[in-house]
């Protein structure tokens, strides 16, 4: 569904734990996916991306998993740190598009 407004889903984790943030997409033609992090008062910041011909991609402390069968994307953050506290958005686009379509976002709160 569409964004539900002011009440973002929130994931609260302890510092040092692993975090998993999930995203569902609806467009089966989407072939490129990207995760952004947005800290309060700032613009979205690129974390990691993945193309539809892959199902997993790893970065530094982050892993993105793509399940095209169920149209699901997840972001895993290892050893979560207080600096990881932010809102995380998945975004996607499809063939022929340059613009990204953003999902609703998940707020990650890291407890020290």
């Amino acid at each position, binding site marked *: 569904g569409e964004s539900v*407004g002011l009440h973002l889903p929130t994931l609260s984790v302890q510092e040092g734990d692993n975090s998993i943030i999930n995203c569902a997409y609806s467009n089966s033609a989407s*072939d490129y996916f990207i995760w952004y992090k947005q800290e309060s*008062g700032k613009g*979205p910041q*690129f974390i990691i991306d993945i193309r539809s011909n892959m199902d997993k991609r790893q970065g530094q402390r982050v892993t993105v998993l793509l399940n095209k069968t169920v149209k699901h994307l997840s972001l895993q953050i290892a050893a979560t740190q207080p600096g990881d506290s932010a809102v995380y*958005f998945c975004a996607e686009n499809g063939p022929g598009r*340059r*613009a*990204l379509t*953003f999902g609703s976002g998940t707020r990650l709160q890291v407890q020290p």
Partner: protein
Amino acid sequence: EPEVTQTPSHQVTQMGQEVILRCVPISNHLYFYWYRQILGQKVEFLVSFYNNEISEKSEIFDDQFSVERPDGSNFTLKIRSTKLEDSAMYFCASSEYYKGSGANVLTFGAGSRLTVL
């Protein structure tokens, strides 16, 4: 690291007034975008721009909005007659040209907060 810069960081305007938001994209990027984010909500696509013309726009980008690249470095969003519901954070973004399908990482600016009274 190259960045997208936006001005002003915050603008307060009266309903019905015209507003121009300015952006300087990353210098070797060829695609430019405007997005908006109403407080607490998701980032919504407004328009994309390439080769001096609009390449895609959303339903939000109606006749009161326009974009322009007045020179080799600036990219502007104009709202002709602001409404209360235009109050939001407006983000400019840019991306490189690439051939074929795949990676299109948009780099975003810090945003311009527009408050319409």
